[in-house]
């Protein structure tokens, strides 16, 4: 169900610590967001894809991973590519509807394509963070970024409860399906309503029971987390920053990517 369970990196990338992984994610993300060059985005997508392919994700899984965000990105790109008052002479095609000339202009298409690849590059950077960091590492990153304790506590607790509730939801859903609860549309709506309410009632029971369990173990309102004492390694951080700066420099101050586009 979860992306980190479906797509598992079998080998760690560069053996980085949690905060170093976050810095690499930020470098990749900033390169994707600050660059307006299509070839830079394609380069980032390829680079991260190669990283995944060489660390235990096969091609089919990689394509599935890339296809995950396509719903929003394709819909958004279609909206940008089409114009409501298109110039018929400059349009690749257009049709009249309700007094509007809906058409696909070259400029709109270029803008949509640029945005599509920019978003894909950013999503691949995000996928790197998701697949390489465990929940405890993310909590550790939160601690180092000085995120308030209450939010980190809620974050960790929520994750634990999500797993419990998902198991319960799955069981109830199978039971409902076996009893033809989803055979008709009206029946489906009733079944989903019952499912949601039973999950909520179960949540309340879980909450009461876990509180009793915690109180019997001396809980007084605060959770303690095991802290990972991994200091940032200067060499790794510097090499990541230099890599990012170099990419942005090539993008802004040299015509390397333009040369590639000419080729």
């Amino acid at each position: 169900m979860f992306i980190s369970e479906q797509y598992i990196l079998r080998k760690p990338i560069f053996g980085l610590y949690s905060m170093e992984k976050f810095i690499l994610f930020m470098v990749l993300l900033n390169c994707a967001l600050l660059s307006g060059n299509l070839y830079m985005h394609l380069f980032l997508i390829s680079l991260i894809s190669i990283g995944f392919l060489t660390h235990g994700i096969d091609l089919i899984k990689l394509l599935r991973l890339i296809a995950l965000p396509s719903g929003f990105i394709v819909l958004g790109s279609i909206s940008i590519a089409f114009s409501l008052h298109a110039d018929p002479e400059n349009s690749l095609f257009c049709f009249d509807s309700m007094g509007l000339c809906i058409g696909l202009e070259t400029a709109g298409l270029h803008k949509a394509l640029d945005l599509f690849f920019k978003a894909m590059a950013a999503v691949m950077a995000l996928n790197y963070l998701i697949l390489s960091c465990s929940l405890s590492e993310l909590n550790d990153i939160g601690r180092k970024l000085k995120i308030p304790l209450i939010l980190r506590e809620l974050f960790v607790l929520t994750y634990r409860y999500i797993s419990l509730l998902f198991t319960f939801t799955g069981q109830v859903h199978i039971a409902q399906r076996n009893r033809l609860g989803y055979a008709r549309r009206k029946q489906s709506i009733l079944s989903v309503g019952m499912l949601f309410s039973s999950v909520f009632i179960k949540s309340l029971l879980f909450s009461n029971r876990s509180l009793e369990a915690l109180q019997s173990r001396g809980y007084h309102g605060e959770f303690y987390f095991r802290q990972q004492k991994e200091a940032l390694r200067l060499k790794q951080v510097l090499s990541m920053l230099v890599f990012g700066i170099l990419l942005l420099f090539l993008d802004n101050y040299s015509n390397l990517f333009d040369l590639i586009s000419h080729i």
Partner: protein
Amino acid sequence: MRKKLFVLLAFLLPFQGFSMHIMEGYLPAGWSVFWTVVYLPFFVWGVKVIQKIVIKHPELKMLLALAAAFAFVLSALKLPSVTGSSSHPTGVGLGALLFGPIVMSVLGVLVLIFQVLLLAHGGITTLGANAFSMALAGPVVTFGIYKLCAKLKCNRSVSIFLAACLGDLTTYTVTALQLALAHPDTHTGVAGAFVKFASIFSLTQIPIAVVEGLITVLVMNILIKNVPDWEGIKLNLQAPKL
């Protein structure tokens, strides 16, 4: 013309209701920062309220975490959509009615973060924009309409349906507006872009809003009937005494 529309519909309908979340990299840096700054005061307010709740009642920490987990599980479940597509509820209506808009402003962010980390829907840089539409605008409208209907002494089921449905539609309208502001149309500007985004998302979102409204009515009615300490739980979460 009709053929073209059918082709367009056939292409668009299979997309999931998760399309409400603005994906990573889709907003320019300036707009990402803007929406984060706009949302931040509400988030800080929500965190302070939650901190005060858990200082007084440490036992409610578990309930809050479960509320976030419940909202996440809700948003990951499939709805029987009228259009035949696979769609997911936003959980905005039910969340706001159960926990109130203040608590929802923080729980909503937690849910959005888990949707990014576990389902790869949404993004870190677009978190502010998504939170503004899903964890603030939607819940505030839902809660406001529910309270207004209660004042006007409307039927409870009708009030819940209107609140959940319109809250959901508000979320989608705000998302369309955020996208239109970030990517205005070359000829018609922000207004034209808003019409484009709103109409293309409405194909999936209007049916989802109606179904989510109906389901919220069912869930609320079952909960009110079956949870013994219902009013107490609602009061604890919705009306924290500062």
